[in-house]
């Protein structure tokens, strides 16, 4: 991580704390924070960013549109690619 660049951003105003991202993530990137925010929600946070393969499943599976993953531009538009092309390549 350089400066304030973040791979995964969680919107605190939209998240309702269902913790489905913890269940859906294949690589267990997320963890639950012990503190409660002003809405009474225990927000998930990114604990193991180096495990992330940018598959983008959490972004689609988040019911509240709160998760943003820094994916390459429009990878899902390709006809023959069903998954993120970076998913198979082992990153960094």
């Amino acid at each position, binding site marked *: 991580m350089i400066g304030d660049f973040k791979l995964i951003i969680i919107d605190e105003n939209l998240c309702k704390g269902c*913790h*489905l991202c913890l*269940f859906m993530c294949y690589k267990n990137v997320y963890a639950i924070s012990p503190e409660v925010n002003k809405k009474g929600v225990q927000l998930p946070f990114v604990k193991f960013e180096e495990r992330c393969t940018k598959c983008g499943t959490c972004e*689609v*599976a*988040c019911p*509240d549109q709160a998760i943003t993953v820094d994916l390459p531009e429009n990878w899902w538009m390709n006809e023959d690619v069903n998954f993120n092309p970076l998913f198979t390549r082992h990153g960094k």
Partner: protein
Amino acid sequence: MSENKNRFLPYLREDRLPHIFCPGCGNGAIINAFLAAMEKADMDFDNIAMVSGIGCSSRIPGYLKCDSLHTTHGRALSFATGLKTANKDLDVVVFTGDGDAASIGGNHLIHAARRNINLTVICINNNIYGMTGGQISPTSPKGSFATTAPYGNLDTPFKLAELVAAAGASYSARWTTVQMENLVLSIKAGLKNKGFSFIEVATQCPTYFGRKNKLKTPTAMAAVMKANTVFKSAADRMSARELEGKIVVGEFANTQKDEFTENLERISVEKSGKKTLINSAYSTEL
């Protein structure tokens, strides 16, 4: 992406967010899956008209920035049929729940499937009437508890995807919200298919179904759903006893058939020539 914004937010009415659905409800994930499938199928978002009935799932078109029609209970498919017949260039998508499609609108569903009219129906099956307080729905599994079934449900549930495939739809599939990649590809196939496309999505309802059935958290419901999922190719080799309480996922119909609006157009040209039913009034303007 440099500005770092969720890729589904441009399609949503952001002033209405966060939406009304309970924490962990699958409806929000299905909005994402539909939008991803729509982008994958190269569809024009301005050409889509959404129709919905009454229910939790039928609130979805209210959060999307496209033309939508919120209709009476169970009659979403009738309104959609009229809309599609009047203007066959529109891409009509119907969001409906299990109470909407299977109980009060059951006949509309099977007759729309029989006619094979070019609609995409996404049926969000949460196994219970969530909006009115947790009553038993026609798709509640046998033995599940609800407000109106304190000793467990005694009836056998509807198998909607098989029902619609038997009624004559050209595309019918069932997936759950834990199989996101398959769901996106299935909705894409349904949008591209010419004919009646029915996609049943089994979702979690932690607030009513989960609370009555000892699965209070969304994660518990999703884990149980994932454990109970059987693919169709594996289910063909299993006995009826082994399949008890399982969710069979896969494609149940994928065929090509005559389509309703094309038949109507053909007969209209055949019988009245240029003076067709729809365009004769506007022929000077066009």
